[in-house]
């Protein structure tokens, strides 16, 4: 009887934890809509179908490749502890034990798989925004498939799968590096291979190409913030009240401070309160806190968020100066603030210290090297074979007509 009681109590805890992890999965899922609307809003209307198409199939590609290889590349099991690479075989399937707390007190095998799968797809989405308005659709889809199917899980394994970075003491709570920087590096390399959009840096000056629908971008950023409750909160891997609620607070305060940081920086240095910068600031704060969301006090999370918000403004301006054309600011948000957030773990919070900072740096560098190398190879291969950039004519006319033979707001000719 007593055993039964203990069992029942444990089962209840398991059910609660698993419920939270499933909800966190749903929250991370909605981030894909956030990315879709953010990226569509910050680009031109003639490329809207195209960007929405990419963002609509990325979750599908992500989940399916994660089913086939990704999950088992990223979590190959204890026999690969400390390694650089591991693989536990194709496909996913669960034994009866895998859906009880014998698998884990926090979640079932299925929840584990789906939560991680939703994460995986976000890395590709980050790239989608940076290369928008000029990339060939089939090339992007192939890139995205390889990126989420292989590159992301291999890097993820280094830390979350128990690989060498984990052994080393590198810390990345919810993926400032493992998700955001990975996506950011892929984006940076992609942008360099592609070159800027026509006219962006023509005649030696920067000609802004404003996003066509700012309300869409706002919807996107709020949905991303919402999703981040699951992204960071779910990374506790249980419904632990103390930790999850702290993570909710640090996440929200960093986002808030990011908004204020970017507002201040854009108002102060760029003369006007720039809404798109403020939106980027919210995301910057979120990315910045992600590596140490469970380690920071409210004050520390405000500091980190504020700095990230300021950084993102200058990063956007700087990348424009060096002619890295990123329509949505993905590289500034995810790569730059991802690195900052990773290093922040060594500077503020429970783990702060030079040793930790060094470990973080090793993580940043090794991840950077690998992802740059891997994505360079992919982009290079694609460029040599099918090509990665649409024709000049198609770029002027818009990818919606060129790639999809559709328009996103076609009411004119059907005024009838």
């Amino acid at each position, binding site marked *: 009887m007593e055993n039964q009681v203990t069992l029942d109590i444990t089962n209840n805890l398991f059910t609660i934890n698993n419920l939270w992890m499933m909800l966190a999965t749903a929250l991370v899922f909605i981030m894909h809509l956030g990315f879709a609307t953010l990226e569509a809003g910050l680009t031109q209307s003639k490329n809207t179908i195209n960007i929405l198409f990419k963002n609509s199939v990325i979750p599908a590609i992500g989940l399916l490749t994660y089913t086939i290889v990704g999950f088992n590349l990223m979590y190959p099991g204890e026999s690969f502890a400390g390694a650089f690479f591991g693989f536990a075989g194709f496909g996913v399937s669960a034994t009866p034990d895998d859906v009880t707390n014998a698998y884990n007190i926090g979640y079932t095998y299925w929840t584990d798989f789906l939560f991680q799968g939703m994460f995986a797809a976000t890395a590709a989405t980050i790239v989608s925004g940076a290369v928008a308005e000029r990339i060939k659709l089939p090339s992007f889809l192939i890139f995205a498939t390889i990126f989420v199917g292989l590159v992301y899980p291999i890097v993820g394994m280094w830390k979350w799968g128990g690989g060498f970075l984990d052994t080393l003491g590198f810390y990345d709570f919810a993926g400032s590096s493992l998700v955001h920087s990975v996506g950011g590096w892929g984006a940076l390399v992609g942008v360099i291979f592609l070159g800027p959009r026509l006219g962006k840096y023509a005649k030696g000056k920067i*000609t*802004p190409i404003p996003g066509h629908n700012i309300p869409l971008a706002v919807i996107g950023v709020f949905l991303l913030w919402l999703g981040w409750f699951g992204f960071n909160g779910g990374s506790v891997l249980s419904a632990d009240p103390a930790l999850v609620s702290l993570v909710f607070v640090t996440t929200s305060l960093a986002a808030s401070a990011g908004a204020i940081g970017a507002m201040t920086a854009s108002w102060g240095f*760029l*003369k006007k309160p720039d809404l798109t910068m403020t939106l980027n600031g919210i995301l910057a704060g979120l990315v910045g806190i992600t590596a140490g969301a469970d380690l920071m006090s409210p004050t520390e999370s405000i500091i980190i968020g504020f700095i990230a918000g300021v950084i993102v*403004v200058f990063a956007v*301006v700087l990348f424009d100066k060096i002619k890295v054309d990123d329509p949505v*600011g993905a590289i500034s948000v995810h790569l730059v603030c991802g690195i900052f957030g990773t290093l922040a773990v060594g500077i503020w919070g429970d783990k702060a210290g030079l040793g930790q900072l060094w470990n973080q740096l090793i993580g940043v560098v090794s991840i950077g090297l690998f992802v740059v190398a891997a994505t360079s190879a992919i982009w290079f291969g694609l460029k040599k074979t099918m090509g990665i950039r649409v024709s000049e004519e198609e770029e002027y006319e818009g990818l919606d007509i060129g790639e999809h033979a559709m328009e996103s707001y076609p009411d004119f000719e059907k005024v009838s």
Partner: protein
Amino acid sequence: MKKIESIIRPHKLEELQTSLQEAGFNGLTVSEVRGYGRQKGHKEIYRGSEYNLQFVPKVKVEVVCASDSCEMAIDIILKVCKTGEIGDGKIFIYQIDDAIRIRTGESGKDAL
């Protein structure tokens, strides 16, 4: 028969239409345009880069009228749309060969 085409400030449209109507001008056609002129548009700022948005939103109002009532229409436009600030807009006057009412096939003055 003449066409009086005026490029005006958008917020003057409603008043102009009412004034013209009261004066017996029973038809006009309006379209959204952007203008460039002495009024230079704004420095807009997008993600840290300034750019000149050369074009200012304007409204084009076209009134076709008999040559003799033309003067009156112009007076009304001048009265309603003048603020005295740069950017008030222009009036262009054209000769028109003919006007036809599609519904009836009438042409000339009767078509207006």
